[in-house]
């Protein structure tokens, strides 16, 4: 794709270098630490699932049990592996026994390290094989049925009831949607466990559970086969269970995951260090199972001024990008976020949006960038919202965004009713068709409004990155450099779940999935 903005290549290189350093600093800061969520993820990767007699998810029962005797520093895997050897049980059986109180891992003598490691490796390999098989199936079906040309429409359902979500998802598919994302109940991010089984009660969204993933994916597979077009499924690797949800997604063959390194910190007040450790494992898992991750820079423009915050979006994109690369996520799986949030009354707002969207596109040529609709300034004037969505659709197709979250007329009021998404899709379909080749057709005036604006934003983003290299990402978060939200490093939810690892810490993820350097 030829550059329309004529960006300063040297400046871009310098931004990348700075962001890479920031990512490296984060890796150091997190080195030698694990979290309860990471350990629960390990348990899941050993095949542990289900709930105990008190409906506590077994991964939690297991990790809590190990934590009770301060065993986490050696890694849950070590204790489970040892029990497998000593009691000749499978990992799931070990967990079940721990769950019903019939087995105390701390009281078993240590078997030979090598045997333990082998037991763990075998169990892990078994789980990996199943996940790989499911994802291979997914890839095959996608390959066989094919998809629509980009931009792909990413559509949210949020009823709270997985069965309603399913019907809503089918309506979206009928209307031409490409990716269904089931938004999560507002409470879930703050839970330090993943609920189990199908759920029918949630607020502002539906709980992400493995059973719900399957119900949705099965319905979409059925529709895809019947209609000869593959429709993707997405969820959220977000909150205190980022890595576990990544594992669940791999098990159920999901296609995309919203997965942002900073969102939980900024908008859920999660502990910085905890989140940094979790996101590495979470993304490592996404990365190795071909799941596309979506970052959330769009959110900054909802809490900070969209014009002033434009450079922070770009700076964050670079950082999110290198944090993802660091744990093995390839470019084609990193969908960097951006959004169309400039106030409708801003003179030449469309030209600013055009510059910003084109900038993201050109800075990350091999990434499937993701573009979000106007929401902050939307209200009960449904037609005004639809007009804004129409120009948003235009910029989306004119700047070759690969993934678009569609806008809906009721965006300013409530989560979509079943027909709202169809109205949004009709608008998107119309504009994408009518303006199909607009991007190729038009050029920006050299040194004009758009080129100058893009250059300005890049320059300021570069300055921010340079500063962040100096002060470090954590201090940057403290100073509220992203979304006007300031978070301090020693507060925030989930900090108690961080554990320093000890000599002989065992974690099978290392290697099998591109595990974070630090672990």
């Amino acid at each position, binding site marked *: 794709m030829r550059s329309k903005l004529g960006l300063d290549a040297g400046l871009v290189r310098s931004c990348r270098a700075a962001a890479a350093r920031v990512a490296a600093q984060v890796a150091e800061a997190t080195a030698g630490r694990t979290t309860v969520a990471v350990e629960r993820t390990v348990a899941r990767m050993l095949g542990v699932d289900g709930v105990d007699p008190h409906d506590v998810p077994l991964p939690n029962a297991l990790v809590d049990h190990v934590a009770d005797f301060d065993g986490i520093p050696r890694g849950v895997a070590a204790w489970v592996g040892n029990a497998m050897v000593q009691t000749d049980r499978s990992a799931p059986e070990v967990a079940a026994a721990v769950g019903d109180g019939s087995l105390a891992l701390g009281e078993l003598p240590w078997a030979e390290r090598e045997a333990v490691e082998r037991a763990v490796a075998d169990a892990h390999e078994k789980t990996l094989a199943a996940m790989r098989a499911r994802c291979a199936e997914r890839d095959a079906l996608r390959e066989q049925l094919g998809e629509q040309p980009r931009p792909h429409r990413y559509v949210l359902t*949020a*009823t*709270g*009831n997985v*069965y*309603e979500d*399913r*019907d*809503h998802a*089918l309506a979206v598919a009928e209307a031409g949607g490409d990716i269904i994302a089931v938004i999560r109940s507002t409470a879930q991010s703050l839970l330090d466990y993943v609920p189990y089984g*199908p759920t*029918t009660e949630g607020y502002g969204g539906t709980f992400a559970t493995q059973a719900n993933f399957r119900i949705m994916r099965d319905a979409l597979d059925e529709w895809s086969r019947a209609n000869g077009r593959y429709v993707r499924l997405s969820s959220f690797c977000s909150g205190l269970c980022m890595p576990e949800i990544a594992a669940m997604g791999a098990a159920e063959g999901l296609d995309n995951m919203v997965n942002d390194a900073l969102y939980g910190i900024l908008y859920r007040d999660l502990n910085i260090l905890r989140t940094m450790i979790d996101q590495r494992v979470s993304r490592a898992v996404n990365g190795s199972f071909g799941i596309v991750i979506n970052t959330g820079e769009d959110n900054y423009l909802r809490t900070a001024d969209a014009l002033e915050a434009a450079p922070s979006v770009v700076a964050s994109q670079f950082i999110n990008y290198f944090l993802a690369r660091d744990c093995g996520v390839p470019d084609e799986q990193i969908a960097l976020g951006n959004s169309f949030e400039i106030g409708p009354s801003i003179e030449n707002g469309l030209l600013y949006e055009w510059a910003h969207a084109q900038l993201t596109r050109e800075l990350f040529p091999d990434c499937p960038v993701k573009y979000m609709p106007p929401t902050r300034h939307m*209200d*009960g*004037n*449904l037609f005004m919202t639809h007009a804004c969505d129409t120009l948003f659709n235009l910029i989306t197709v004119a700047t070759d965004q690969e993934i678009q979250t569609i806008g809906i007329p009721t965006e300013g*009021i409530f*989560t*979509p*009713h*079943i027909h709202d998404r169809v109205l949004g899709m009709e608008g998107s379909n119309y504009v994408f068709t009518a303006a199909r080749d607009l991007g190729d057709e038009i050029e920006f005036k050299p040194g004009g409004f758009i080129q100058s604006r893009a250059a300005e934003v890049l320059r300021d983003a570069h300055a921010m990155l340079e500063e962040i290299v100096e002060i470090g990402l954590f201090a940057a978060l403290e100073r509220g450099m992203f979304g006007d939200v300031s978070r301090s490093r020693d507060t925030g939810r989930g900090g108690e779940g961080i554990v320093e690892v000890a000599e002989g810490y065992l974690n099978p993820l290392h290697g099998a999935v591109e595990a974070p350097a630090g672990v």
Partner: protein
Amino acid sequence: MSSVAGRASLEAVRPYGDHLDDGLVQMSFTLPVDHGPLAREAALALVTQMGLVRPEIVHAKPLTKGYTYFVVFAQCNHTVDCSQLRATSSSTRAMSEEQVDAYVAEHIDRPLVVIGASTGTDTHSVGIDSILNLKGFDGRHGLEAYHWFRAHNLGSQVPNTALLAKAFELRADAILVSQTVTQQGLHLHNLTELVELVEAEGRRRDVLLICGGPRISDELAKELGFDAGFSKGTYPNDVAAFIAQEVAAREGRSADASAAA
């Protein structure tokens, strides 16, 4: 149980927003009242009178002195018993151009004469043209192209009297009227007048009266004394199929006279 799609009970159907039976309905209207708290109250009171509950004004906009526009969402607890409903729309078998011609040849065995126009001061002729003219609509021929039809299109702005005179002169089997301008109920006036003229002549039984237009429904047409009404998305063969089967039925010649009953 909630895990089966299409699980709504047909006996008590309610509007659906994002949950079965949440009854959510969107509404918009202008009240001839100055914008302000009182106008809000009036809007809420009005929606309440419709039997809707939890009305919520999501948008209110003053238009000019004395007028305020509202967008409201509310919950509708009225239910419809679909098991008791029966579609009133004309139940004719759908037929293609060829099938219609074959049907007329077999059951009626004489060419059917149809005459059409856009009546009164209505200059919209694209609708009636697309039914009668050779070119037709959306790639499907108009009745002019049918072997067993003799179609006459008088065009637009045709007075009802002129249309009738010509119809009787040609012994038309069916009169086709198009009405597009509906503001202030103009179409109702034009259509009613035509029926009255035909009845005054005592010729109502001799001819099929058919009307159409973007805002004509079969229900409305029958209410006005026509035999059928056709709206947006109508194809010439839909109309031809109706005429053929109806004429056959009336002459007691149809395979299944019931079909057009």
